[in-house]
């Protein structure tokens, strides 16, 4: 809680020291600044460090966690309230090791467990860029955490369990493209923050990297990137993955929920080579083998009734866009037949799409997306359960049936 005041004190001391002054005066190379801006996009800094209608990078965005609300910090070069007095060493220390200039521990909502892989050169470029953005005088808002999580020293325990410091090391047995993809996905992209199961301590387990999980507080399920049954990308072409990441729509499916934010703020700005490298790496994560058959706990009589009820709703409300046999009209109306996002073990996402609808993000590659209507008012819990069960099991899909109770619970999910 005392970070602001200690930070301020440290800042004042640093401002008086000649070493810092010379570091600040040294104008960075425009090419380095441009590279830093690009890398800041890849790291999606803006998504968390800019509040709604707030000044860019001035922080103040509330981040709800199971432990309370964190407020993101001001990373503009304002010397009093931002990071204007930080040196590039101190910036790297934060990115690489999750520590403030005074040695204080950073809450792991800041993805330093991923950013630790970022090279010193790239960290310096981001630092150089952040020094050029307009400084904003805006004090950081104190975090609002519940006991005992308001005790920063608990982070030490978290770090022991979940944090492995270390810069990215290329794998010499793989292609340069694969290594670039690995670096972006595991480092700046911090994909694992959502796509790896989060345990009760808010940590993600290396042993389960990219196996997917429910995103706390948001009630969206971040699918596994390793299992073909989920969003394992083994069956996708590189082109389809590239479209999905950059445009937000592809022949196989569209982005929605929290992933729409990532494409909107970050991935659409990456160049072709980098997105392609990420696609190559992501495709390589997928574990081969045909997806296993689903097993269901619903008695067959009940599930066949549910299915015929679901089909009648589908034919009435869904088929005009998604097609009588779930083929869709890709990329704008995604196919449902064979769509992994519908068949995942967790039915949270398909239920939410039916209830809330949604738009893929507006991107330079798809500036005027087609939207899916919300059906929360039109369909009862039973109808939602029936139609989601139908799309999860029709046309060779292998998902499990869902219950009206599951549908009902998600009506209260946070939307925004």
């Amino acid at each position: 809680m005392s970070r602001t005041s200690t930070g301020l004190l440290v800042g004042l001391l640093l401002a008086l020291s000649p070493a810092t002054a010379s570091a600040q005066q040294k104008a960075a190379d425009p090419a380095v600044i441009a590279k830093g801006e690009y890398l800041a996009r890849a790291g999606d800094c803006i998504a968390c460090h800019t509040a709604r209608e707030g000044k860019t990078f001035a922080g103040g965005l509330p981040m709800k966690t199971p432990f309370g609300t964190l407020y993101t910090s001001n990373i503009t070069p304002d010397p009093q309230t931002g990071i204007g007095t930080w040196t590039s060493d101190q910036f790297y220390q934060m990115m690489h090791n999750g520590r403030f200039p005074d040695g204080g521990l950073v809450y792991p909502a800041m993805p330093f467990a991923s950013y630790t892989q970022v090279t010193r050169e790239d960290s310096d470029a981001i630092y150089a860029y952040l020094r050029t953005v307009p400084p904003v005088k805006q004090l950081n808002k104190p975090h609002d955490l519940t006991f005992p999580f308001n005790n920063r020293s608990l982070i030490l325990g978290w770090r022991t369990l979940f944090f492995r410091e270390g810069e990215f090391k290329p794998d010499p047995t793989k292609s340069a493209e694969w290594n670039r993809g690995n670096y972006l996905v595991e480092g700046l992209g911090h994909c694992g923050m959502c796509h790896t199961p989060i345990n009760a301590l808010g940590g993600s387990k290396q042993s389960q990297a990219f196996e997917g999980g429910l995103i706390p507080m948001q009630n969206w399920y971040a699918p596994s990137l390793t299992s073909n049954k989920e969003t394992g990308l083994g069956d996708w072409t590189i082109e389809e993955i590239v479209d999905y990441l950059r445009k937000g729509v592809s022949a196989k499916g569209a982005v929605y929920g929290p992933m729409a934010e990532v494409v909107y703020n970050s991935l659409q700005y990456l160049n072709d080579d980098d997105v392609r490298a990420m696609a190559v790496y992501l495709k390589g994560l997928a574990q081969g083998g045909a997806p296993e058959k689903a097993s269901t706990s619903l008695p067959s009589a009940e599930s066949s009734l549910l299915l015929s009820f679901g089909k009648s709703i589908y034919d009435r409300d869904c088929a005009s866009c998604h097609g009588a046999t779930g083929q869709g009209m890709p990329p704008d109306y995604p196919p449902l037949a064979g769509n992994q996002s519908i068949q995942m073990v967790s039915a949270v996402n398909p239920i939410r799409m039916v209830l809330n609808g949604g738009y893929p993000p507006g991107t330079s590659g798809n500036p005027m997306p087609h939207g899916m209507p919300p059906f929360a008012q039109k369909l009862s819990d039973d109808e939602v359960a029936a139609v989601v069960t139908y799309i999860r099991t029709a046309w060779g899909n292998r998902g499990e049936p869902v219950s009206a109770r599951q549908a009902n619970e998600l009506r209260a999910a946070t939307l925004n």
Partner: protein
Amino acid sequence: MDRFLPLTALLALVALPIDAARSQTTERAPDTMAARVLACAPCHGAEGEGTSDAYFPRLAGKPAGYLYNQLIAFRDGRRKYPPMNYLLEFQTDDYLKKIAEYFASLRPAFPQPVPPVDSKEVLARGEEIVKNGDAQHGIPPCSACHGPALGGMEPGIPGLLGLRAAYISGQLGGWRYGTRTALAPDCMQIVASLLTEDDVKAVAAYLSSRPAPADPSFAPRGSLPMPLECGSEPH
């Protein structure tokens, strides 16, 4: 295992037409605004004409500048309604402008006004505020900015006819309680805070009882001398 047989059988049945369907999947979604904004239809009607739900407003024929301001306000959270905030969160200014212009251009028929359920006195009080305001309490008449015919003024001031009482009172309440805000100076926030609960009810009752014009038109930009400065209606 055999308890899954009916399911398997059904899957086998529906699986048959897939090959036929796949061979013709080059069909694309219609490249039209109507197809793009189908997501709005369940609440606002396919042509923005509104639905039977009184809380969801008609969009068609409102000034594009007004609709655009609302879309931006929903996207950025300045106007709070989670289903709208969610749908618009990741759309660009350009696209929201196109959506606004699209709905502004539509002219579906207005619904018949609902016969008023309120007393003559309530309607008369509403008419008084709408046409003459309430000088004693500093309340300007609605018609000062929304036009003598209440059709609105370009670019940012909406018409007030063809809306239901529940929606109108909901919006006036939203301004009073801060869930609906506009660019500063937020003139409607000022006006709404001057109204009593009874005033809100009376204005909503009167406006919703008026027949909408067959051919709605906006007053031209700057043609009405507005008594208040409004951030959403640049001078």
